[in-house]
């Protein structure tokens, strides 16, 4: 009788433990995301602390001297196509819906780090009005387009969670949203850009030392690690920054920015985040790096 009772008690204990485990696992799955580390979890809890997370991707004016071709308008379209594509066999930068009243705005609902839904609103803004640099310089709408891209970029550094710039570095004078200043020989006046650093100064002027809203700034432009990273981190030590250590081919910059975006939306921790950036580029050792985010 005693053996029987102890058998029943043992079986009941095992069943109870199993049930508790099942409840714990399933409740865990439904209410929170699994992170590799506490730091990673905290990063995403901060990023998605509000019900609405705002992202901004601004393409700079991408002239391609010595050709007249300007490419950012097309790159933006490729980027948007990926955002609007259904999420088949991948997650993150896909499955967005477009705002019917604002061609630059896209939304998607994701699951936040606490298992609750978050709305992501992303704006994707281009800088050029057409594919021909000479024509653009004569088009009055170009002035508005450049101004609008620049103003949104600067405002975004104060008000949205994630800001990406994909464009020219202009030898340290970028980010740049305007047709470039040219020398008499019709080349980009790098001396002027290097001396004045107009784009970098705009970033530094917009950043607050104690970042409240913006958590991550992606600078997908040539040698942005060398040209911008230190000054940005000095100005805003709590800001995460993605930069490129080398010269970056336009298609690689595009893939890197999409990969980083996917990682943020699917809350990847450092190793997978960096793995994604590495896979996105075709040139060895050119991959973008993420600093101060995790």
């Amino acid at each position, binding site marked *: 009788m005693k053996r029987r009772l102890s058998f029943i008690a043992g079986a009941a204990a095992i069943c109870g433990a199993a049930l508790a485990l099942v409840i714990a696992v399933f409740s865990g799955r439904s209410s929170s995301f699994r992170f590799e580390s506490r730091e990673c979890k905290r990063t995403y809890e901060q990023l998605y602390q509000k019900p609405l997370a705002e992202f901004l991707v601004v393409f700079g004016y991408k002239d*391609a*001297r*010595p050709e007249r*071709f300007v490419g950012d*308008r*097309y790159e933006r*379209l*490729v980027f*948007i*196509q990926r955002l609007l594509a259904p999420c088949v066999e991948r997650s993150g930068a896909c499955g967005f819906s*477009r705002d*019917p*009243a*604002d*061609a*630059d705005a896209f939304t998607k609902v994701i699951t936040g780090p606490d298992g609750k839904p978050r709305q992501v609103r992303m704006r994707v803004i281009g800088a050029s*009005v*057409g*594919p*021909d640099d000479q024509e653009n310089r004569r*088009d*009055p*709408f170009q002035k*508005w387009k450049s101004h*609008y891209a620049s103003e949104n970029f600067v405002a975004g550094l104060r008000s949205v969670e994630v800001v990406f710039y994909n464009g*020219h*570095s*202009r*030898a*340290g004078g970028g980010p740049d949203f305007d047709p470039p200043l040219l020398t008499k020989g019709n080349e980009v006046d*790098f001396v002027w850009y*290097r001396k004045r650093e107009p784009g970098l100064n705009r970033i530094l002027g917009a950043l607050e030392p104690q970042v409240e809203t913006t958590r991550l700034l992606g600078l997908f*432009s*040539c*040698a942005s690690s*060398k*040209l911008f990273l230190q000054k940005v981190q000095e100005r805003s030590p709590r800001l995460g920054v993605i930069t490129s*250590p*080398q*010269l*970056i*081919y*336009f*298609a690689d910059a595009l893939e890197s920015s999409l990969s980083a975006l996917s990682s943020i939306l699917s809350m990847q921790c450092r190793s997978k985040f960096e793995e994604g950036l590495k896979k996105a580029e*075709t*040139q060895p*050792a050119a991959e973008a790096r993420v600093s101060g985010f995790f």
Partner: protein
Amino acid sequence: MSKEKSKSFKTKVAVLHSLLGTHRLLVPRTLAVSIGVFSVAFAGPAQWTDHARRFTGESQNIRSQAISELRKDPQLREKLKRALGTKDHFLALDVISALRMREMLPTLMQAAGKDPSGYVYHAINSLLTPADHAMIVRVYLQRLEKGSESAASRVALIDSLARLRVKLDFDFIERLASDHDPDIRSAAVSLARSQVRKLGRKQCVRILMNAVQDAVFQVRLQAIYALSELRVPDRAAAYEACRRDLHPEVRLHCEILRTDS
């Protein structure tokens, strides 16, 4: 520095660049050299992709050198064909354009239909001569009418037609201007603007006027700017529509439409 020394320095820099595999150099060469100098030790024999990366942002000298290296490759055409649609797709297109490989046109015409980025059309455009214009306009119009290509490709096609300065059917432009995709509508507004400004087709002003009522504010503003360049009576009506616009960014620019401005 003497001329010889200067030339020798330039040659060394050129050699260094050829070893670095730098590409789309959008910073000055001195900086590029300093960034890439540590990569020299790891550089292997140059592939066609290494040369292709030197086309943009580089000096004419480096670019010419890369082109002449590529011309030496007897297998280049086959390599480029194989690269289309792969991770080296864009580099292959850069090479085809830079080397003006017109013999690749049939391959590109085929590849364009499968390329959602629309960049194959940019490569095709770079190879055209005036003798091709009639044929290319016919093909581009067919592809746009078919409507099966990606938005990026369709914008590339519309932009190409705008740049070819060919008179297009009004109904065709109007259909593009009422497409469901705002980027197509925006490209159609640019096309209508170029038809009015470059070909004097006043009837296309109507397309610009309709665009002042577009669903997205960016297209409305684009149409307002386009109308502001034209001395047409419709500007007054556009001004009134602009003042009633729901978007503050649009209303901010109505003054450019004032006929007395």
